[in-house]
């Protein structure tokens, strides 16, 4: 079964272009045959298993497709998990169905060990438990880290009423007293709330402590420039910039990217051997010349049930070790006098 071979490839965790290529093409064929909406999508683009010979040719779907189409090889009723996007702008949420979570977990186990934590530590999780957010891939991910690596004294410091600032402060103080390095896990905007709460009160966490953030702002709080955010993080917790790690992931994928700390900014996102990125021209689908800014497309071998190739709305450029994420493309204002999209939507009450 292809899933078994993919799992083995992931656990081997070694660069192997040939095997990656073979597995991607085989997985594409399965998705083409078993995922009806995806097949229709590919056929319209004249991309079929006959013509697709390399992973770069696998037709990518826009993230929006997860909102409007059911992308699942296996009937939805038989899937064990449905991770949904946060539905930040349009209200509609994309759905990524997982037939089972073996591969998702295998993928995160390998990357977490390499980029986040590789031994038991005291962990503070600033994100709700998975039981409270069953459709959140991030909750699943963070909870699993706590389960696998959390030493005694670890805990969750967020609930329905918000961040438990006092309990969190106690956790940090205790760790400092015990000289126990800690791992902080949280969404980016949660840290911004912490900055606002603690203000001038800083902590000096024991050597070996790490701070992990993910998710960006999602319109929740005031956006800080990236460099400022990490400087503040480092200062607030007394943790060097190299130990501040960011994870870039999305519900539409099964694998995550990481940077190697923020000693340099902007940080380069690095991924494991079973995921690839292309920077493309969104109209032609062609690769842009190396280093040019374009739209980011991911090819994730671990996306066994849905679609391996996903085009994001994010803009970035290629780098030796991976890619640099710049954010959203700046809105192009109308140059002529024809009514702009935003104004039209405002008037008709439509959503995108």
């Amino acid at each position: 079964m292809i899933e078994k071979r993919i799992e083995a490839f992931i656990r081997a965790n070694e660069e192997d272009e040939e095997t990656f290529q073979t597995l991607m093409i085989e997985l594409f064929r399965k998705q083409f045959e078993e995922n009806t909406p995806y097949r229709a999508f590919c056929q319209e683009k004249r991309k079929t298993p006959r013509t697709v010979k390399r992973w770069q040719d696998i037709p990518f779907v826009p993230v929006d497709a997860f909102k409007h189409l059911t992308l699942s090889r296996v009937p939805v009723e038989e899937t064990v998990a449905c991770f949904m996007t946060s539905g930040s702008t349009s209200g509609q949420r994309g759905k990524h169905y997982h037939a089972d979570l073996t591969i998702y977990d295998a993928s995160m186990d390998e990357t977490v060990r390499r980029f986040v934590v590789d031994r038991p530590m005291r962990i503070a999780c600033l994100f709700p438990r998975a039981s409270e957010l069953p459709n959140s891939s991030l909750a699943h991910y963070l909870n699993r880290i706590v389960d696998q690596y959390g030493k005694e004294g670890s805990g969750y410091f967020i609930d329905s009423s918000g961040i438990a600032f006092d309990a969190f402060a106690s956790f940090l103080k205790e760790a400092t007293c015990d000289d126990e390095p800690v791992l902080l896990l949280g969404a980016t905007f949660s840290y911004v709330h912490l900055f606002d709460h603690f203000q001038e009160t800083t902590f000096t966490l024991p050597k070996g402590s790490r701070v992990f953030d993910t998710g960006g702002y999602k319109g929740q709080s005031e956006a800080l420039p990236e460099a400022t955010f990490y400087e503040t993080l480092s200062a607030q917790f007394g943790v060097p910039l190299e130990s501040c790690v960011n994870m870039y992931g999305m519900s539409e994928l099964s694998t995550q990217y990481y940077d190697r700390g923020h000693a340099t900014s902007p940080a380069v996102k690095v991924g494991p051997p079973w995921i690839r990125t292309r920077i493309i021209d969104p109209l032609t689908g062609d690769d842009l010349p190396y280093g040019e800014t374009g739209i980011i497309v991911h090819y994730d071998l671990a996306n066994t049930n849905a679609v391996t190739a996903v085009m994001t709305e994010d803009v970035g450029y290629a780098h030796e070790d991976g890619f640099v994420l710049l954010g959203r493309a700046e809105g192009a204002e109308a140059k002529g006098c024809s009514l702009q999209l935003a104004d039209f939507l405002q008037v008709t009450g439509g959503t995108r």
Partner: protein
Amino acid sequence: MKLVGFVPPSLRETIGTERVTLGPDHVYCPKATAETVTRVIDHLETKGRAIIQSYRVDELIDRIDEAVRLLLDRTSLVREKLLRDLQTSEYDREMIDLHLTDYVKQFRAHELRTFLVEDFGNPAVLDTWQPRVKGGLSRAIAAPVTYHSWSGNVPGVSLWSFVSQLLVKGPIFGKVATREPYVATAFAYALEQVDAHLAEAIALFWWPGESELQHVVYERVPLVVAYGHNDTLARIEASLPVTTRLLGYGHKWSFSVIGKEALDAYEYERTLHDVAWDVVNFNQQGCYSPQVVFVERGGNVSPREAAAQLFHELGTWEVKHPIRPLALAEKQRVQAYVSSGRIRAIQCEGADIWCAPDASYSVRFEPEGAVEPSPLHRHVTVYPFDTIEDVLAALRPLRAYLQTASVATSTERMTDWATQLSDVGVTRLAAVGTMTGTEAGWHHDGRLSVMDLIQWVDIDERLYRASERLVSYRQ
């Protein structure tokens, strides 16, 4: 070296130029400071005004006509320089060349006389007191200086209000558009070449949108003509003293309605070829460019077949007028529109999309679902309809933004549809293929072209009678 803007000839020595960056171009434009702007306005209000008012209207028409001929003449240096300056525009050379000719033709003497007769009936009111049917006399006077703020990248949009302003014998202080400052500049220099005296009533400056200098102007002029986004117009209005009038031209939404008569075996190819031209010209960026096409069911050619044919016609035009590469954010917007079309085609049985391999143009067919705007740059959706009511229902929320509707149907139905479309807010009904070519004296956004620029002054009939009693030769 690109020169942008214009200073009245007698002030040129004392007002220098400065180098600025406008998009991809480095240009020289008049040095813009509160001092220079004030000095120019002083000059326009006094010397400039005296000069332009000393002309009779038909003399002004002749001067403008001569300047326009310089722009029409393919061998003239003025035209050559203008076309060279416009090379950095996103529109291809041939499109500009064609457009410039078609567009500028509207400002020849005959057409100008038509504007004036259209609006004034008796254009001599601009020269002297003219008798009124009701008795008494009236005269039409322009403001001592009028400020025109132009915007957008469609070449030559500025000429409309520029020429109108001169026709009413009012000095003009114009701020050229960042993305297309060349046509107004070229016209000003052409006029100077024809008559340097008249050029004393013209000043063209450039400054960035947020510049404080606009407020210097707002304090001095009683009338502002502005083009731009509604937010910009609102900001301008908020900055004006209550005694200053604003004529604003905001962004608009236009569309096509194709009746079944235009879809018979003989007509449909030509109809769709023309609709495609409306889409292609200026890459849909004009306020008069169609964003969607409504096609009636029941013709020999079905709406879906019409959409396929429209796609084919866009391809034909693309060969003649290839589109330049878009900016990344524009590409992304087009991509989102095309993806949406592909997804709709999978979700909904009747929906479809035809897309060029590099997505340089596309047509979507949407039998159900609400009207969605186009991302522009030659991407359009065809919506089928059974009765004109279906179309009106979709248009009603957009009332404030509607402008041009092209209509292809029989005369009887055309006038009937025109009535109904005008009731929901359309201000211009055009033939397919001509949406982007406006006619002499058209009412831009339903407003009068030249009349808006003047103030009427009336001499009461009783004053005339009273004065008659006091003449030296009274009996």
